[in-house]
């Protein structure tokens, strides 16, 4: 009962905070500068690691499918298809989102939390600036912009990783793999994954901002907020993954 009340309370203050975030920006040019900075903080700094993860995941998915389906009745090209669709449908949006919940989420929460406890947020408020909007809006917009991009990049890299593993190990003939990549391609899957990653972007950036922005206390609480940001972002990503899949693919 108490936990339920607490959850509702948090949901309420989360929504109130979003209300403050989405009120009218005061100086557009400054917001634009903040946005570019966040693009760098949240997006570009994650590019390298996303490339590496995607490359490895693409190849491991391909190899596993290949070794688990060594049956003469299954056409070899299915392995290419499997690699393509698992990257598009699940890996490049959901797995990358979970990864970003850890990286960007904790980063956002600890940055805002530190600003809160060192009175930097108060300093903004005292100048008459809507600190929630000023600090959080650029983070959300940058995430909305960059997550889908990361997803596309991850799909391409993952498929390349799969292809590379086929070339290197020779587990199946490369032409079979290539044929599978093009077989029965459903463009809606890409739309589906981009919708997912956009919504995940919002979930991660807004939830992490909420936990960071509302820190009270000291450095210890900032650490706790950062953990909460990761946990609750991840849970919500997984929850919405199910909901969106049911809505979009059924």
């Amino acid at each position: 009962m108490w936990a339920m009340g607490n959850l509702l309370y948090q949901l309420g203050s989360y929504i109130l905070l979003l209300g403050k975030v989405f009120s009218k920006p005061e100086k557009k040019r400054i917001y634009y500068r903040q946005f570019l900075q966040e693009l760098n903080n949240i997006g570009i700094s994650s590019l390298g690691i996303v490339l590496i993860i995607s490359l490895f995941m693409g190849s491991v998915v391909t190899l596993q499918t290949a070794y688990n389906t060594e049956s003469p009745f299954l056409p070899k090209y299915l392995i290419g298809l499997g690699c393509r669709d698992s990257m598009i449908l699940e890996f490049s949006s959901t797995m990358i989102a979970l990864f970003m919940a850890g990286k960007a989420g904790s980063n956002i929460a600890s940055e805002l939390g530190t600003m809160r406890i060192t009175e930097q947020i108060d300093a903004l408020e005292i100048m008459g600036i809507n600190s929630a909007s000023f600090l959080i809006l650029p983070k959300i917009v940058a995430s909305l912009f960059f997550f889908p991009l990361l997803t596309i990049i991850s799909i391409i890299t993952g498929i390349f990783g799969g292809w590379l593993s086929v070339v290197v190990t020779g587990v199946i003939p490369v032409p079979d793999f290539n044929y599978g990549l093009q077989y029965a391609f459903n463009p809606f899957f890409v739309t589906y994954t981009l919708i997912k990653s956009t919504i995940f972007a919002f979930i991660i950036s807004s939830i992490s901002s909420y936990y960071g922005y509302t820190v009270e206390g000291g450095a210890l609480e900032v650490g706790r907020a950062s953990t909460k940001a990761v946990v609750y972002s991840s849970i919500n990503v997984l929850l919405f993954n199910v909901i969106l899949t049911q809505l979009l693919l059924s």
Partner: protein
Amino acid sequence: MIRVEHLTKVFDDKVVLEDITCTFEKGKTNLIIGQSGSGKTVLLKSIVGLIEPTEGDVYYGDVNFTRLSFTEKKDIRKKIGMLFQGAALFDSATVEENVMFPLHMFTDMSDEEKRERANFCLKRVNVVNANHLYPAEISGGMKKRVALARAIVLNPDYLFCDEPNSGLDPQTSILIDQLIKEITEEFQTVTIVNTHDMNSVMGIGEKILFIHEGRKVWEGNNKEILSSDNEILNKFVFANQMAMELKKARGNK
């Protein structure tokens, strides 16, 4: 003028401020003094609205600030310059960018003009050759001074300083005190300074409010403070050797 009326602040069950009533005048340096933990910061933050008072009101001129909405408060806040106890500089910005920040937000100056104004203020607080350093790269006292430069960069009507010279050497302290006084007189600001430094009290205390355990115990100026017979105040004042000497010197005249 700022008027505080019957201000009370309770955190959970703890009464931190109790029924404070006082006025702060324009063109004078008003000091709030008291021991560590007496409630100075809470009072100052209640005055600027960062802390919601449990009871009571704060008037800026004739406007009841406490009752204003967030958007209405904004108009007054744009005229406030505040120096926080921990400086509160933006970590991700350099010294110069920190001071230029209010100019970015609230003026249409060209970049050149902004830089000039920022450097002028930095010079006034005696910070030179640090423009491109980040807050993490400068000393605590320097942070305070940069924060003061940021607080005065827009020529505020209201200037609030929470312990502007804690952590500064005596020489720089005097310089900062004098600067605050100068600005107050020059621009006729309503200035409120929190301090527990007796040097500041004697130096710039044109109006002094002494609070003890959240209550106003004494009110006066730096001429009256040494001859007060309030016991709690005397304990506070004469804990400081310097003031003791002063009293002796006065007595010998």
